């Protein structure tokens, strides 16, 4: 396939979510006095960073045609394990961080292996993993977390570092940027494109010699590892809690869908999924600033997910009819029924 000349371009589905995000940020600037400076937005980014990282992990799994429902429980497990092992002992920080990350990768590996080798749908595998982790954490802690996180461990989610021009930038924002850039580069590369192709048409990838199982396994492992990273940031942000991960899997899925990523896989960009997560967090902040009851959050998430999926299901036909010229300017107009190109 002939490559179009490089120019700054947005993957399909990115533009709507960016428009939503900009609208929300403008809304925040009007509604909240804190959002007239860089600090206000950095504080928002800091709070949104764990969800954005989870959304990146969830994106890998969803775009390759699966679901990962275990990430919320994995976050809880990560925080509870870290608190119990550190127990306030500063010197334990380093190896516990390594262990938490390894635990996340391991859970992802198990999810991936069961999905690909035992051919159990990922929805069921990760739902089972959610229950297993929830139960195990409950059993281990008797329902109440013990121990405490060290100051050094909490730095990643709570502390900040002085950056020229920007001032105090939270560590979690820097970590998020690194992850986001790495994810974007990865998705532009061969393996990333193959991952999308698996979600689009698994059979075609198999026939053309792609290693479908290995790609899917990779998606789950990445999701598990990023969930562990989110656990470190969330534990740092707010301390030990057995409720820290509750409902996060659903939020991450909402964010990814809001980012225009097709459920079932095959279409969507990782930057858009991340922007979806930031939009969600900005929306909740805005609702709170406007004095809307917190109980509405779940309802809002529900409406968003249905609207976003409906918009995606109406398909490119509607979008092209609404903006007829767009089809010719989009870099890679693609019929979703056709197998995607593999490098």
């Amino acid at each position, binding site marked *: 396939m002939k490559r179009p000349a490089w120019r700054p371009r947005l993957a399909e589905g990115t533009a709507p979510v960016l428009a939503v995000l900009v609208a929300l940020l403008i809304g925040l600037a009007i509604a909240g*006095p804190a959002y007239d400076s860089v600090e206000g937005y950095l504080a928002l980014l800091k709070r949104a960073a764990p969800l954005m990282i989870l959304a990146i992990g969830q994106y890998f799994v969803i775009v390759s045609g699966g679901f990962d429902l275990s990430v919320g429980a994995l976050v809880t497990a990560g925080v509870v394990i870290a608190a119990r092992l550190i127990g306030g002992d500063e010197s334990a920080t380093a190896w516990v961080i390594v262990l938490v990350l390894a635990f996340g990768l391991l859970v992802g590996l198990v999810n991936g292996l069961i999905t690909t080798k035992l051919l159990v749908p990922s929805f069921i595998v990760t739902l089972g993993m959610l229950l297993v982790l929830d139960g195990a954490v409950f059993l281990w802690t008797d329902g*109440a977390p013990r121990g*405490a996180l060290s100051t050094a461990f909490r730095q990643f989610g709570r502390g900040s570092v002085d950056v020229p021009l920007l001032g105090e930038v939270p560590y979690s924002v820097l970590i998020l940027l690194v992850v986001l850039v790495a994810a974007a580069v990865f998705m532009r590369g061969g393996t990333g494109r193959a991952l999308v192709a698996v979600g689009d048409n698994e059979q075609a990838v198999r026939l053309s010699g792609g290693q479908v199982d290995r790609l899917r396994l990779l998606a789950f492992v990445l999701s598990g590892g990023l969930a562990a990273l989110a656990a470190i940031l969330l534990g740092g942000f*707010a*301390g030990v809690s057995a*409720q820290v991960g509750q409902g996060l899997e659903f939020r991450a899925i909402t964010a990814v869908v809001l980012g225009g990523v097709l459920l079932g896989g095959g279409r969507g960009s990782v930057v858009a999924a991340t922007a979806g997560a930031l939009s969600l967090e900005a929306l909740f902040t805005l609702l*709170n600033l406007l*004095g809307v009851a*917190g109980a509405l959050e779940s309802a809002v998430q529900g409406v968003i997910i249905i609207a976003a999926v409906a918009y995606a299901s109406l398909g490119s036909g509607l979008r092209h009819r609404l903006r007829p010229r767009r089809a010719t300017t989009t870099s890679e107009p693609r019929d979703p029924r056709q197998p995607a190109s593999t490098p």
Partner: protein
Amino acid sequence: MNRTLLAVAAVGALVLAGCSSELPAEDGGGGGGSSATDAAKSEFFDQAEFDRQLAFREASADGPADKPWEQMIEPALVDTAKFAKPGGGYNLCFSNAAVDNPWRQVGFRTMQQEVEQHKEITKFTVLDAEAKDDKQISDIQSLSGQNCSALIISPNTTATLTPAVEAACATGVPVIVFDRGVNTDCPVTFIHPIGGFAFGANGAEFLTEKVDAGGKILALRILPGVDVLEQRWAAANEIFADSELDVVGVEFTDGDAAKTKSIVSDYIQREGQIDGVWMDAGATSVAAIEAFQDAGVDVPAFVGEDQQDFLRLWVDEGLTAVAPTYPTYQWRTPVIAALKILNGEQVPSEWVLPQPTITQDDVETYVAEDMPPLHYAMCGCENMPGYPGPWK
């Protein structure tokens, strides 16, 4: 397209699951950011009970002052001679609602240690209902057939467990109910601290004293619909309504530290300044305080609880704070009551325990640096033989 539909259905199911498990069943007594200002009376407010509990706070308790778990306020003693069974060799049975939060864990450990201290108790049979009414009903039935010398019940919910408790009473075993109550007076004694109205009032009164008129108060609640928590808020709401304070928000935190911190940060931005924070339970108080610290503003007057992490922060940072308690030492009392009953000694039909409040003057005596962050200071366990091992 089939795959998309499946996925949509799956996510739809998720939405439903999320709603049914996380959303409050009903909006009890003015939840939500803006509705707080109308200060309507909570449906859980009961003027007579409110007055009674506030009077109990001033009443002097009978019994040893250094052992509040043996004290009783205005007791109406009943005869227990018909249950007397001197000689020891007791099989003490306990149907526990749950051990699913730090408060119940500290309490249950304290109870186990209390049992250890009494050689007359040769067997301690415990069934944990895991916060399920139906499991507790069958637990109580099964304990009825296990030759219990006395049966202690900590009910999961009031109305649903009442028939099961009545059935247990009918077997002739002395029944002792504590913590939450039931709608029957068949148990020999019902043990509880003064109650939720006093708890809520202690914190709210502190804020009316420490915060200037017109000051902005943020109220943080765990979740609606739980009577003990609703009573705390109903009392605070009553006191705020009669004060010059401005309650700018009443928010539910689900007991989640991250959510608490985000909510408090939002309010600091929205209101510019918060002058006092009232909480119905202290588990997330440290997260709420951190929101002020991270925003770079002074921590205002705070109502927490007797968890160690809050007490430590209070002392270290020199906060203006108060800690109403729902003392975990009440878990010692049912064991003591059971032994009294089996000895034929009188016990009060309603055993009201004192409910101390930790203040600026005595907070340092409750700080225990080596205890876990969510250990409850008011456990009355410091002088028990095994301390601090089992509580760590």
